[in-house]
């Protein structure tokens, strides 16, 4: 394509459209927002209104008490991520958004599982826990409560393995994430 400042001809045929594209992969957005009442409602409302589906959402404080971090994951096969971030940017209380690069990002989720396990089953579950470095945090006659941390996929894998034993209850936080290296996320 002809350089902008030169006189060479620019063929319209060569112009390519930008934006509105589906990336086809999972995205983790790390959003810094002002720690003010109603901010989460504004974000949730925006997603509902525009038909964006949040897969997971985690909210917590940052090192600065005036600022909270929202980490959310969504599916780039379903949503044009650039449109999602641009709409988020329009919210006055949203300070900064990063669409974290998967290769440069450490993501973790915490999950707790209450699994029915007695007799033989108990030993098997404990073996799975060991492989996943999951912690058993409570034991009763018929069940165990297990704590797992890891990526979303790891927690998913754990869930798949223990489900056949009888999953009584499960709680997952959704991923939080931080970019590797020196820069601020």
């Amino acid at each position: 394509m002809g350089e902008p400042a030169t006189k060479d001809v620019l063929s319209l045929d060569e112009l390519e459209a930008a934006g509105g594209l589906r990336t086809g992969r999972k995205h983790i957005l790390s959003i810094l927002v002002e720690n003010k009442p109603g901010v989460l409602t504004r974000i949730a409302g925006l997603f509902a209104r525009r038909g964006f589906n949040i897969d997971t959402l985690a909210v917590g404080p940052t090192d600065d008490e005036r600022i909270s971090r929202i980490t959310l994951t969504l599916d780039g096969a379903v949503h044009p991520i650039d449109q999602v971030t641009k709409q988020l940017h329009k919210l006055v209380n949203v300070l900064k958004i990063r669409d974290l690069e998967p290769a440069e990002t450490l993501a973790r989720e915490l999950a707790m599982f209450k699994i029915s396990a007695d007799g033989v089953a108990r030993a098997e579950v404990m073996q799975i826990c060991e492989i996943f470095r999951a912690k058993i945090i409570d034991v009763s006659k018929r069940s165990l409560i297990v704590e797992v941390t890891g990526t979303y996929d790891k927690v998913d894998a754990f869930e798949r393995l223990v489900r056949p034993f009888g999953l009584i209850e499960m709680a997952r936080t959704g991923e939080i994430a931080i970019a590797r290296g020196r820069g601020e996320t």
Partner: protein
Amino acid sequence: MRAVDALMECLKAEGVDVVFGLPGGANLPTYDAFYDAGIRHILVRHEAGGGHAAEGYAKATGKVGVALATSGPGATNLVTPICDAMMDSVPVVFITGQVRTELLGTDGFQEADTIGITMPVVKHSFMIQHPLELPRSIHEAFHVARTGRPGPVVVDIPQDYSRADIPYEPVTDVHLPGYQPTTDGNQKQIRFAGKALANARRPVIYAGGGVISAGAAAELTELATVDRFPVTCTVNGLGAFPAPHAQWLGMLGMHGTRAANYAMDEADLIVAIGARFDDRVTGKLSEFAPRAKFIHIDIDPAEISKNVPAHIPIVGDAKNILPRLTAEYRALTPDPQRLDEWWSRIRVWQERHPLAYEESADSEIKPQYMIQALYEATGGEAIVTSDVGQHQMWTAQYYHFPAPRRWINSGGLGTMGFGLPAAMGAKAGCPEQTVICISGDGSFQMNAQELATCAQEGIAVKVFIMNNGYLGMVRQWQELFWDRRYSHVEMGRWPDFVKLAEAYGATGVRLEDKATLAEGIREALATEGPVVVDVRVTREENTYPMIPAGQPARNMVG
């Protein structure tokens, strides 16, 4: 001083000269402050009227409009104008009263979650959390409403906070770290755009309401006339380019001209400026302008590639970008003759398909003729507001707006009942100008109560009701797409608009004969005070041409 007195100081500092509102329990302190604040307050008859009046004021003057309401029902009555201002990017600050903080969340008397109810339809909102925050929040509200892509901002003030005694110091700066609109367009992209234009053989400029908010009408004309670029505007953009003009194609979209729609259909390059590719413009998206590449200039990055992927996106203020684009183009000294072929094609469309209608053979007044007569009687110089329906589209087609801020309508939300209060607000902001409202017999009844406000305040708006006895636009759709099954669109002969006008203290006139229409319009325009003219027109006339909803421009009918 009381927080509400500080509020008055803030409004004055923002240059507010008129506000529209109606008091109640939760904003009694605010109204006490208005008693001797020296700001003109116009007491409306319904808060929705006040909200639309603030929009009309903002659209006519380019300044921020202000509307006030009490808590609960007062605030909920503002929801429609707030949403309307959001859809059409109108800068308005809405100030609502709220119940005392001790009652919040208890279903207190006249408590409504105003911030929650309005959240999806505001640019931003402030719930005052402490009396000391009030002055700063007010200035922030004006700043957000006015800058970037303009829009509505709500400030909700609990009654007890508004009475609090606070030390007031003028606020001279606003600090919103999360709000920094981009105004400067990227130079490299502007250069690319210049080159693309220089290489286009079938270019079209598609301009919208953003050119008017930017105050960039002159800059648009300069860009268009640096060569012979054909120009079309959206409904909201009318007046951004002077009509008539040799390069003017007319409006585009559902009820636009064939020349404009066909030109979009065959264009190789479309320059969208402050326009948002609404579905009333694109029709069937997948078949919209299939041969074109797009340069998209908009101050809101989220508009770019939202509906139609842009090839050269330029984020920023049209006022800043257009002169730079013109300069880039000029420097390339392209051969103007390359557009000859394009123009001869466009001229054929224009000659073959001018806007036209069948004139009546007898005394009947055709609605299109009514608009032509109004255009002639006002010399095209009036500020014209409209309601929503057929009359709105005929006005957009047949009243040729020569300048920006003369045409004020509800485009995005399509709010019936917008016209009269918007005219009232426009006239309050521009008292020297002739302000007319072109309404329908259906729409007019949705905010007719504001005639009392006009009479009391001496606001001399001239209302012309295009009376067809139907909810005309809906009747048209039922005729064309629902086998003429006219379901609940007949308005009959009620009310008697002449008597209604008189009851409200306005002058009422009825015009029924083509032969005396022009004279009657002139007389009405010359009559002092608010006037309502009931113009009886053809009952079942259709607005043409038309792209049936969801179809491509090629399929225009009528």
